[in-house]
């Protein structure tokens, strides 16, 4: 039982990170139907920004409390990453806005490769940790071990997602995002500034990735290629949940977290993990062809 609870906590931690990245995928997809394969790499960049800013801050502002440093780093990373995402959108995707959908997808693949290898070529391949802004404290309750950072990850992610969900569902900007996603030709007739809405979407997606990145960097190492795997998994999360759907992305992220953690637990040999995890995915899509919360695009014949 305690083993089970332990694994649930583990799964929530992993799932939270996936969910945060998946949100960026889903938002960008939602609005311009673009599978932004560069998103995982934007996430990677966010961790590097956090690394450099955090290290610099830590050495210049010795006196400050760790939490404050962390928040400053987070804000810097969110800002820089959003800027990067908006620039990428402006220069790489915008020219393709009215082109066939897949050309932008291939461009995104290219941008992703560029970011990865540019980081590799300039910063080098060595893995790093973010500076320790505060000490990791591990608590054991009834045989279940959990740490303060783990709790922060789970809680902060959940909060970020709830806020975002409310924004998209309830606010005018959210509505405009959905409208643009359906028909970017008509949206301006309602007074909606399409370019700005798209930029905002990219910025939000990237800042959420940065939140994910900073939290992630506290527990895992960072390296130039880290975005690839997590990018794919987040993409899968987004699709499993129903791509374009905010709650779907969260749900998908948690599901993937659980699948990833629990398959090796249940299996006698964990080497079959990927096999089982992806078979589950395949089955799931056979029975829910549009993801869990997704529905077929309302289309009249």
């Amino acid at each position: 039982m305690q083993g089970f609870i332990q694994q649930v906590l583990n799964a929530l931690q992993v799932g939270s990170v996936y969910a945060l990245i998946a949100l960026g995928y889903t938002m960008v997809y939602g609005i311009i139907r673009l599978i932004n394969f560069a998103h995982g790499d934007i996430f990677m960049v966010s961790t590097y920004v956090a690394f450099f800013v955090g290290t610099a801050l830590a050495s210049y502002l010795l006196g400050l409390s760790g939490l404050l440093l962390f928040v400053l780093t987070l804000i810097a990373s969110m800002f820089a990453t959003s800027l990067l995402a908006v620039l990428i959108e402006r220069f790489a995707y915008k020219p393709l806005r009215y082109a066939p959908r897949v050309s932008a997808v291939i461009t995104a693949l290219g941008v992703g490769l560029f970011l990865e290898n540019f980081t590799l070529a300039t910063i080098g391949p060595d893995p790093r940790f973010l500076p320790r802004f505060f000490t990791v404290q591990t608590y054991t309750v009834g045989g279940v071990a959990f740490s303060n950072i783990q709790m922060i990850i789970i809680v902060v992610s959940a909060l970020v997602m709830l806020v975002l969900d409310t924004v998209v569902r309830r606010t005018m900007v959210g509505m405009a995002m959905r409208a643009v996603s359906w028909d970017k030709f008509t949206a301006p007739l309602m007074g909606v500034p399409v370019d700005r809405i798209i930029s905002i979407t990219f910025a939000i997606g990237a800042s959420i990735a940065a939140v994910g990145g900073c939290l992630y960097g506290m527990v895992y190492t960072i390296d130039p290629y880290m975005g690839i795997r997590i990018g794919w998994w987040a993409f899968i999360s987004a699709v499993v949940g129903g791509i374009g759907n905010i709650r779907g992305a969260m749900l998908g992220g948690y599901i993937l977290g659980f699948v990833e953690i629990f398959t090796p637990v249940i299996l006698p040999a964990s080497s079959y993990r990927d096999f089982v995890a992806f078979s589950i995915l395949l089955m799931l899509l056979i029975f829910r062809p549009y993801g869990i919360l997704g529905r077929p695009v309302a289309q009249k014949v």
Partner: protein
Amino acid sequence: RPRGPETIKIGLNVELTGSIPVVGASCKNAAELAVEEVNNAGGLEVGGRKYKIELLIEDNEDKKESAAAAAQKLNAAGVLVMIGPNASRNAIPAAEVAEANKMPMISPWSTNPKTTLDAATGQPKKYVMRACFIDDFQGVVAAKFAITELKVQKPAVLYAVDSEYNKGIAEIFKKTMEESGVPVVAFESYTTGDKDFSAQLTKIIQAGADSLFLPNYYTEVPLQVQQAHKLGFKGVIFGSDSWGAVELIDLCGADCEGYFFTTHYAPDIATPKAQAFIKAYEAKYGKIPDDVAALTYDAFGLAFQAIQAAGKIDREAVNQALHNIARYEGVTGVMQFKGTGDPVKSAVVLQIKGGKFVYYTTAQP
């Protein structure tokens, strides 16, 4: 005027991009250092003449087809010897190319037995060598060390299932353990690139393991160790030569204190040659060389020695000379070749102590 080329071309077929750029970077660093040293000394003296070394570097992207193409390209460029690739998955196809073109090849780091064997006949390849020992040896050494020195009763293993290196060592380790009557209580795996191992570690802890063998790369080991501690693992942890980079200590911090790993050489009891290499490397790149760097450096050392012994710039002669080297004293210890491309080397066990790698014991083959 003397006839013949002004320089000696040596090729480096290396994983600069792809999934193990860290290996590629170390390899490239050591290669450039080795060549620079020779060139700064005026070149390599062969048959009474000094030749500058020209290093041709090709990125193989950690892809087989690219490793083979790079080997072809180096061959076409007329390199005398090709060093690399490092990962066996790339070294094997490149070795096929080397063998077919009679181009001597030395892999610094490929530990898969198949690299130096002809698949059809099972006989050793004629033009392919390596500078490291093979996985099997290390797996056995680690198991024996664990039983005799660490006195483990309930060992567990966590390894990358999709990597021939990790899986190879892990399996030999398990087999040796079981043959010695010490059952492995948990044999868990993950996929390269994973960053969270809590599921497997929780399982290992629940299996009551008293020790954990991590034959994994130093980029991943710190996470594994830290997560194990976070989940409450108290036993001893040990690993293989892929731990051998100072970054491990940087990344792992106090968590790795007191742990062991088997490797090629021990910096603190190293020979003068090794000391000189470590110093030069540190001066040039600002860090202690890892095992790939040391092995690459030795691969170059082997090549240089063979070229000098051959006395002429000729692949056949150099290959012959390479195979005639019975004993080579490199920075990673003494290598003995017994007619095949695989060196017989001793392994050392190092312990992490006070943020340093400290010599613990030596294991003979």
